[in-house]
């Protein structure tokens, strides 16, 4: 793939120029690091991984699916802003790829699709693990980006990853020079992110160690909200007071960690136990998704561990299952 070079001191200028044509979404540090709209390029914070994932820009927290009036339905226009995302990590990019499989490949979700089609994905390569909870190296992540920025002290090497990336680089050609070399596979490796030793968990379903995680689980749903790939939702209607036959149908984020999530007709809850719900999340991430789509859903960003009030480290639990260590560590 084509590689370009951008001097570091020109990055802010580059982004300021890009800002005229796009809305730039990049990590910003307030109380926590989160992806937000950038007004000045200096706001961008690249030292640590963002606490909140970027998924809310595609799979929105709340989405109006359609308006209804009696039995007639009006579907809203799938409008989405032209956006450029900057500072996406390898895990964030792969998470977008995995959600694409579900929302575009599988369901053809027009709301998600519209947001994705208007987005340019600019990555930022981690030279070191940006969080102690990272384990992306243990998973089979691939190159998925429009442009990827490799931080090389005084300059960036920018790898072009798609046709859209190429046209974007053409448009702002004045900022780039041709690089003398390509990016090696070794450069793409991130050191210290290979914690997960146990990826095939098919034989561990009845293992006693699941209890270790479930015992200190509050079922608060922080893990699934902060996960960049989790895509469960619920749907409900909101009607107008002036005329309860009119209203809109809404979709909003939900979580498999909730009892309510599996409440079905007849008031039956089929994952009543906390342990079952905890286990289900890990199995969906590492096994069920792979069985269905051929790739693991988890991208190893570690946000579910970092954001958990009790820091349930499922990676450690899985490793201990494999290595036969069952004692409680402290």
């Amino acid at each position, binding site marked *: 793939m084509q590689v370009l070079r951008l001097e570091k001191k020109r990055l802010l200028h580059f982004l300021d120029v890009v800002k005229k044509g796009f809305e730039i979404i990049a990590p910003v540090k307030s109380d926590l690091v989160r992806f937000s709209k950038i007004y000045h390029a200096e706001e961008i914070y690249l030292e640590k991984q963002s606490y909140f994932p970027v998924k809310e820009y595609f799979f929105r927290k709340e989405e109006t699916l359609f308006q209804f009036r009696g039995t007639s339905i009006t579907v809203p226009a799938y409008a989405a802003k032209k956006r450029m995302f900057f500072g996406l990590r390898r895990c964030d990019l792969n998470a977008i790829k995995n959600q694409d499989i579900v929302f575009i490949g599988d369901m053809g979700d027009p709301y998600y699709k519209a947001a994705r089609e208007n987005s340019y994905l600019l990555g930022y390569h981690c030279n070191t693990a940006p969080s102690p909870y990272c384990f992306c190296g243990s998973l089979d992540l691939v190159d998925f980006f429009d442009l990827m920025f490799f931080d090389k002290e005084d300059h960036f090497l920018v790898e072009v990853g798609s046709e859209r990336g190429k046209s974007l680089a053409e448009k702002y050609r004045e900022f780039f020079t041709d690089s003398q070399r390509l990016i090696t596979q070794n450069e793409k490796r991130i050191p210290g992110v290979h914690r997960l030793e146990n990826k095939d968990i098919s034989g561990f379903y009845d293992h006693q160690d699941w209890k270790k995680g479930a015992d200190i689980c509050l*079922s608060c749903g922080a893990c699934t909200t902060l996960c960049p790939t989790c895509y469960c939702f619920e749907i409900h209607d909101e009607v107008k007071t002036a005329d*309860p036959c009119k209203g809109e149908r809404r979709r909003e984020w939900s979580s498999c960690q909730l009892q309510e999530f599996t409440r079905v007709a007849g008031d039956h809850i089929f994952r009543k136990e906390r342990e079952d719900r905890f286990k289900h999340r890990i199995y969906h991430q590492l096994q069920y998704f792979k069985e269905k789509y051929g790739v693991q859903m988890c991208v190893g960003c570690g946000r579910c561990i970092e954001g958990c009030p009790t820091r349930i480290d499922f990676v450690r639990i899985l490793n201990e299952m494999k290595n036969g260590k069952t004692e409680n560590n402290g």
Partner: protein
Amino acid sequence: MSKNKKLKVGVYGITGCAGCQLSIIFNEEEILDLLSLIDLKAFPFIKELNTDEEFDYVILEGLVANKLDLEILRKLRKNSKMLISLGACACTGCVPAYRHFTLKENYEHLLYKRQEELQDIEPSPHDEHVKVDYYIPGCPPDKKEILRFIKGSVRGVLPRPHQNPVCIECRRNGNACLLDEGKPCLGPITTGGCNAVCINGGLECWGCRGPTKDMNLELMIKILRDRGFDDRFIQDRMRTFAGLKLPMLERVMQGSKSKVLQTRFDGEKKFYE
């Protein structure tokens, strides 16, 4: 919809601050539409002419704190097909029910001993006396939730009561976890539906909407202990709004003392990061 087909509704209050009834009125933009949906037979708080009769449902604020309250509650229950408990007092007993956990002798001389006509009974939520058909909890309740209930009743589909913890809405709103900041937040064991309004404003959850059915109480106590709060504080905090709905609290607190339960998997001692 002809007028006589509309649902007959009454809104009443017994011992309480009237804030919950105010929450209904706070739906200013929609209140006129709301009144055209139902036949509001009685709402003494804002209406001059009220008719006590057969209701389709009664929305009742406040808790039972004296004999008159109990009479009103029983009468309304008898006259109404459904009884809706509105607000924390009605649903959990709220702050007035905290009296169960204090010594009466310490304060009754201040007022009750001086005024003969004040004859109280043990403060208690509605469901300790009569059957309750629907709960709209919160101190104060979410005005949109009341609206949603009334609209649902007109369509014949009552909204599903909230069961999820506050954390679900809190994280969705992009808040930092207050437990990580060392604050005694009860969000993980408290029923949501409030859009995490307190935490959005930086205040920890005090549990006004009552405990979730699925709470991990033992772990919650342990987390608070590990963050340096003593048992007295934890007990008081949990009992402020929903003490009567946590009858197991003392037992769980005793039981969890002997049990080793790590509240930080990574074993970090530091809670402020």
